[in-house]
């Protein structure tokens, strides 16, 4: 039971990583470097867009990515803990569940 939850947890974790790292790659390498010259055709205030992403925007996106990661993983962790707890209860039907906390 625990193994199954562990596998599901890891799969979900890898999915979160793939999503966030794709954004990381797209913003920094694609927008900030490869497409920077093209994006420079667009302007806001005194900035050319490509230049702004390269020197400012990408850093803000990096911050947001790590913050989102923290929240998503918190959610995933608590789901995993609830699931393993439930599984332990089923498995330990007749036994006392006194050592529950040390398991999570």
């Amino acid at each position, binding site marked *: 039971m625990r193994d199954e939850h562990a596998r599901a*947890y890891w799969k979900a974790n890898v999915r979160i*990583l793939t999503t966030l790292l794709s954004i990381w790659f797209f913003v920094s390498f694609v927008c900030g470097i490869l497409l920077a010259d093209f994006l420079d055709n667009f302007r806001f205030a*005194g900035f050319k867009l490509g230049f702004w992403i390269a020197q400012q925007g990408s*850093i803000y996106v990096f911050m947001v990515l790590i913050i989102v990661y923290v929240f998503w993983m918190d959610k995933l962790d608590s789901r995993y803990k609830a699931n393993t707890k439930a599984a332990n209860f089923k498995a330990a039907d007749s036994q006392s569940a006194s050592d529950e906390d040390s398991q999570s």
Partner: protein
Amino acid sequence: MSSVQLWTYLFIGLSFGLYIAIAVWTRAGSTHEFYVAGGGVHPVTNGMATAADWMSAASFISMAGLISFLGRDGTFYLMGWTGGYVLLALLLAPYLRKFGKFTVPDFIGDRYYSRSARLVAIFCAISISFVYVCGQMQGAGIVFSRFLEVDITTGVIIGMTVVFFYAVLGGMKGITYTQVAQYCVLIFAYMVPAIFISIMMTGNAIPQIGFGSELTPEYGGGYLLDRLDNLSVELGFAPYTEGQRSTQDVFFITAALMFGTAGLPHVIIRFFTVPSVRAARVSAAYALLFIGVLYTTAPAVAAFAKTNLMNTVNNAVYEELPEWFRTWEDTRLISFEDRNGDGRVQYLADPAVNELTVNRDIMVLANPEIAGLPDWVVALVAAGALAAALSTAAGLLLVISTAVSHDLLKRSLMPQITEKQELRYARIAIFVAILVAGYFGINPPGFVAEVVAFAFGLAAASFFPAIVLGIFYKRMNRQGAIAGMVAGFSFTALYIIYFKFIAPELSTPAHWLFGISPEGIGTVGTMINTAVALTICRFTAAPPRYIQQMVEEIRLPGH
């Protein structure tokens, strides 16, 4: 003594007093405290300490200047040195915290069940950190000599003594809390002049916004960046906001700095000090927020300073230039040669008629003076630069000391030593490392400054793939990991040594491999490491069962 010097003595005296007070208050009593500060550091505290650990003399003194001369290409420093934190937070920090030991060679040695792997990791950790720490000591010496007119030797010795106090007494515990204080000092010292200048030039108090605003009428109006582009073109330079280097080179340098950031042992070990896996994630987020404050300000400072310099200096009558020009001329950071004898300064791109050479460090060090800010602001910069240099030096020295006392002695050569003895060896190791670093700070071998930038390439090509594969690929075995680290590290080191020391005259895009400069070659090293590791791993035995279980355990959330 000038008023600037009085202020400088005051700020440096106060900040050093604070560091020593913290050292006395946080003495370490056990190896657990010495190596990982007892493992109970609050995520916000650790985030701040990581930020100071990370931002070195180079970030504080040189980065804005580098960017102001590179224009948009300077981006690789900005994205490279911040984007690496995304990798660190998502791919390394939480799992290494779950693993829960003291050092990076600990992880490599245990995960790859091999003394050779541990020894390779020790070698990489010590050489990377050592190269890096010499640059910090040198940075501290330069600040002392320029602001206080003491000679570099005295400056380095003062710096060494202070680091000695809190690193030898407190280990990681002392280092953590002084780094928190140092972060506050350095960020204040960086932001105050930046805000002043932003208000002066654009009327906007936030440099990140002032960067994209219009100049005030005294500065001629119009958007700052447009004006900067025009000024650059007028003087024959490339437009500031356009890239000059080849796209693939910028791409590879950025990637090398990112992978390197995530693989630098002194940053990784900071995440061993927090109490849980969750705390490791949270503190990575705080670390990047704290770092981002400086890193989003730096490009603005670069643009302000460059505009200001060109405005003030070009075509000005030499005799009428403000006092700071002569002060910095004395330190040879600026030099003027009146080639056409008209008594005016010509600052032009064409080397045949240009009369002014400007050292990049001046963009931060002299910026407050160029902008005519009050003396106390000028003095603040010295205290900030020292905080940046010393905080990074301490983190690096700790890596060297733990690599010797813990990884080399306790875990490899003398497993029978007691904790007390191990702690004594750790203190001796850090003491010796300080002396050696100080020696090289005073007598810098010509190559140190050059090599600091390459520490990233080396970290990227050795540790980053070995750690990531160790977590994400259960089948990775010791043969693959060792071969990968050796291949990646030696390829990168040889490429750098070849182009920087053996045949520097050949170091042009035409001769580089795929047009990738030595700064960016770490990315290729990372790829080679990964490819070699995966290939060798296929033809050799899978790691033992207990190692695979350990990997599964690392992947699950802790308490």
